[in-house]
């Protein structure tokens, strides 16, 4: 089932999951999942609601402890690393994060320096530099003194991305960074993420809902279904009508975008009542 179609030469793995099992109380959400993230790549995790993509991302970031298996950061078991060390290597932007509304953009982004803080937690020269740099990259420098509650949705998301950037980590994980944004701001955020990858070589893993955006901005798509990897590889190879039918229960046509040839999925009907559904238990509640 799992197709591995990376046609690039093998490169260094910075983040890996080995035989990862994750569960909330009794329910096992992820049964034995393994994956490797190569340095300097953009990987998109996609899948239907409840497929476990957010859970995988949080486990990779050590926000959730797996019940079995392990996550490796640069070859070392992440659970055994000091918290601060992890925070200097890996930043995660959670889904719909919240902060006190009176906080200003500058005050928010400043917190990104916490894992780098020296004695007395005073900001040093390099911290001020990193903060300004992060604000500049996220195009938030001019909004530095604005309060979070005075920002638009897109600006607020850029402020949070700036926080993650101020953390100066080589790895950046993002959980649905485009939720609640209109299409223009979605593209703006994704373009910013793409630049961070291209210019700074950051390794990026992001959970996305929109398959077409995943196809456009990620070099690799991992499709999750009921906690398992059902497809993994280049967008143009793995995005097929069969996959969409199996995972999302939709009938769809895949075309290439007339402007740049990127694959585009065009769903046109649900397949819920289709008699030729190849998996009778594929509603996501299958937890065996």
């Amino acid at each position: 089932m799992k197709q591995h179609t990376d046609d690039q030469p093998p490169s260094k793995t910075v983040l890996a999951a080995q035989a990862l099992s994750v569960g909330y109380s009794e329910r096992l959400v992820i049964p034995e999942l393994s994956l490797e993230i190569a340095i300097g790549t953009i990987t998109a995790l996609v899948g239907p609601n409840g497929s476990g993509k957010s859970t995988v991302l949080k486990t990779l970031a050590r926000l959730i402890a797996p019940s079995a298996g392990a996550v490796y950061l640069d070859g070392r078991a992440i659970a055994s690393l000091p918290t601060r060390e992890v925070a200097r290597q890996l930043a995660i932007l959670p889904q719909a994060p919240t902060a006190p509304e009176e906080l200003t953009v500058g005050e928010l982004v400043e917190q990104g320096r916490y894992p780098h803080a020296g004695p007395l937690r005073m900001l040093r020269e390099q911290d001020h530099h990193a903060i300004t740099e992060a604000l500049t990259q996220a195009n938030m420098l001019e909004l530095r003194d604005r309060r979070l509650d005075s920002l638009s949705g897109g600006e607020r998301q850029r402020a949070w991305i700036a926080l993650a950037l101020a953390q100066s980590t080589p790895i950046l994980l993002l959980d649905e960074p485009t939720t609640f944004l209109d299409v223009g701001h979605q593209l703006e955020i994704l373009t910013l993420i793409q630049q961070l990858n291209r210019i700074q070589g950051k390794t990026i893993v992001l959970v996305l809902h929109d398959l077409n955006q995943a196809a456009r901005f990620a070099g690799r798509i991992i499709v999750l279904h009921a906690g398992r990897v059902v497809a993994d590889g280049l967008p143009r190879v793995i995005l097929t009508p069969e996959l969409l039918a199996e995972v999302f229960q939709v009938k769809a046509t895949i075309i290439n975008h007339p402007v740049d040839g990127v694959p585009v999925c065009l769903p046109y009907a649900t397949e819920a009542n289709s008699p030729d559904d190849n998996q009778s238990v594929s509603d996501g509640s299958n937890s065996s």
Partner: protein
Amino acid sequence: MIQRLAARYYSLLILLSLLVLFVLLVLHVAVGSVPISPATVVAALFNQPVETYQRIIVWDLRLPRALIALLAGAMFGLAGAILQIIMRNPLAEPEMTGATSGSVLFAVLWLAQGPGQLAQPGPILPFVALIGGLIGGALVYLFSWRGHNDPVRLVLTGVLISAVLRSAISIILLLRQEVIGTVLLWLIGSLNGLVWDQLNILWPWAVIALPLGLTCASLANVLQLGEASASSLGLNATWTRLSLFFVAALLTASAVAVVGGITFLGLLAPHLARRVVGADARRLFPFSMLVGSGILLAADTVTQAVTQPVTVPVGAALALLGVPFFLYLVWRRNP
């Protein structure tokens, strides 16, 4: 706008606030059954020659009360600011640590059942109340603990435990009604009759707990970004929340032990402070202290001036004035 100015001229703001506090302190000392002019108060405070009776009134009777108001106000203000951050709830107040009702319960128990002569409102009572407050805080924390702590569960448990402790207080008071007279002022929260003895019980705790809370400001800043972001930044959220909770309970318990269960101050002071300096805990914590001191000093001054010769307890006055003021804040919140 105010917030931006406050951030830029923060040291100036603090200096000005300290000046205002000094003026409030002088006014507080000046007001009473024997009025003394503010100029005389200042002279007495700086050891300039004044009449002997005036010196005695200023130094022995009124200054300790003013200083207690100053410290207790700061402690309630800081405790409230800390709790609003760890509970991620703008309505959190020191009462929710369980420390207030724990203190009151222990004090009432002590007065009702304590051993003979010792069980009088004297220097021992505040220590008993302090122990009760810390036990109340520990109860809230333990009952909210399920492998890790959670802000919402902490709030709900705090409300619940406080309610249980309060009903226990009511039952004891009903069974031993002769105690009511002794603890009534203290149940409401009052500065009446407080002198150096009580100040000497309060200030060591203030000296320990206030700086402890202030040094936690940068941790609180990370914590208020939420559990996931805080963990991503390398902060142990559970441990930080526990430490901050303990500091807040300590502040509340020791303040309540001396001045009684003054409500609303711990809710009001951080709210006002937040409007001026914003949510950055490094500015919010110190400024909440100053605002708390200012409110308690001013409220006690006004109450004394208005309700001579029978002084209404400042706790009652604060609750009376606090409710409409808080309503105003809530209304203004969403224009």
